[in-house]
């Protein structure tokens, strides 16, 4: 089998986005050939008469449904994906994403509220992780975002975060 159909099969079965290096390892092909075939696949699936797409998430690739098919897919899976993050969680994530690595106190001073329980929830959901300790009195824990965070928001990498004018 050629490399493109092999990639198609892998992007289909995988539960996690697969980085090009991993795809090269699995197929035994050159990384360059993998990238080329990925581009080709992406283009083919982009056609209007296709219901799927090749998405790039958290540094990897994966097959997924197109948003236009969501209504029909949701009929099949009623009640799924009902989970939405609270405003408090979202604000906290926003601060961590842009200011990482960041301490709890720094987050609290921006949001004006305690964030202990929000941090706990976000860590449980694996949206954030402990990224080290700050070289400061008490050596407070530093937080950073995870791959799970990127996947949840459909982002390739951190550079894809919405670019807003900096405060002031």
């Amino acid at each position, binding site marked *: 089998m050629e490399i493109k159909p092999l990639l198609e099969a892998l992007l289909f079965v995988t*539960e996690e986005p697969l980085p090009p290096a991993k795809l090269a390892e699995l197929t035994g092909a050159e990384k360059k050939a993998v990238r080329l075939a990925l581009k080709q696949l992406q283009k083919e699936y982009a056609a209007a008469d296709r219901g799927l797409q090749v998405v790039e998430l958290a540094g990897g690739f994966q097959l997924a449904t197109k948003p236009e098919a969501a209504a029909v897919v949701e009929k099949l899976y009623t009640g799924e994906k009902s989970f939405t993050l609270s405003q408090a969680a*979202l604000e906290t994530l926003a601060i961590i994403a842009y200011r990482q690595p960041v301490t709890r106190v720094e987050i609290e001073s921006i*949001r004006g*509220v305690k964030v202990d329980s929000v941090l706990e929830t976000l860590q449980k959901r694996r949206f954030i992780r402990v990224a080290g300790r700050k070289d400061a009195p008490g050596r407070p824990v530093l937080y950073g975002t995870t791959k799970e965070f990127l996947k949840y928001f*459909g982002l390739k990498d951190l550079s894809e975060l919405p670019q807003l004018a900096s405060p*002031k």
Partner: protein
Amino acid sequence: MDLQVNLPVFSGPFALLFHLIEKAEVDIYEISIAEITSQYLQALKEMQELNLEIAAEFLVMAATLLKLKSKKLLPETVEVTAETGEEEILVIDSREELVQRLLEYRYFRDVAAELRRCEAAQKRVYIRSLGGKALLVNPDEEITLAGVTLPALLEAFQRLLAERERQPQEIAPDDLSVQDKMQAILKAVRGKKDGMDFRELFPPQAGISEIITTFIALLELIRLRKIVVWQSGPFGRLLVMRKSRAERGSRSAWK
């Protein structure tokens, strides 16, 4: 109780302050401490009347605003000590600093709104999450082994082994590898259009060790989908043949 609450649940005191500033349509740089303080206190009162739980930070902010307001009324030199007992989250010493903090908060509030949009967009995209089931998505799996079930194959092997065990044992060469045997089997079935008899794979002189090696090689080849084993009828012979040839054959005839 009236459920028409026009106060949404605020994620923090800054969020409430922003709500008030936006409602009053005041430029953030132009806020008057006196006005914002009275509006803020009014909002807290409303929240209390609605029996909403008010986090401690909202009260600290109230104290902070009152401190700023009184500071303005007093001569600069007088030190105001509005002891809050709270942590340093909301230590704000001047109107300018309050504006600064509000701006910073607004930035992240806007980022959060952007993330909310990303969240909504991603919710419309579905990936497969079948876990290990993905391994079984090959419907040919059964056909690969079909005609023959694993029990049938193992029974054939067991019979063979039992037969040979009764025969005098010889010293089996130890250098026979499964890899070698796999090659040998592939070579043996090559060109055999109708497959070859399972038993032919095991020469009469083969010792137990070789039989086992051959059998494992056979399983490996089935696993790698290089060959298939078919049974010609319920009690018929077991036929081993190359996968590619089998694919071309009329598969349904064997179902």
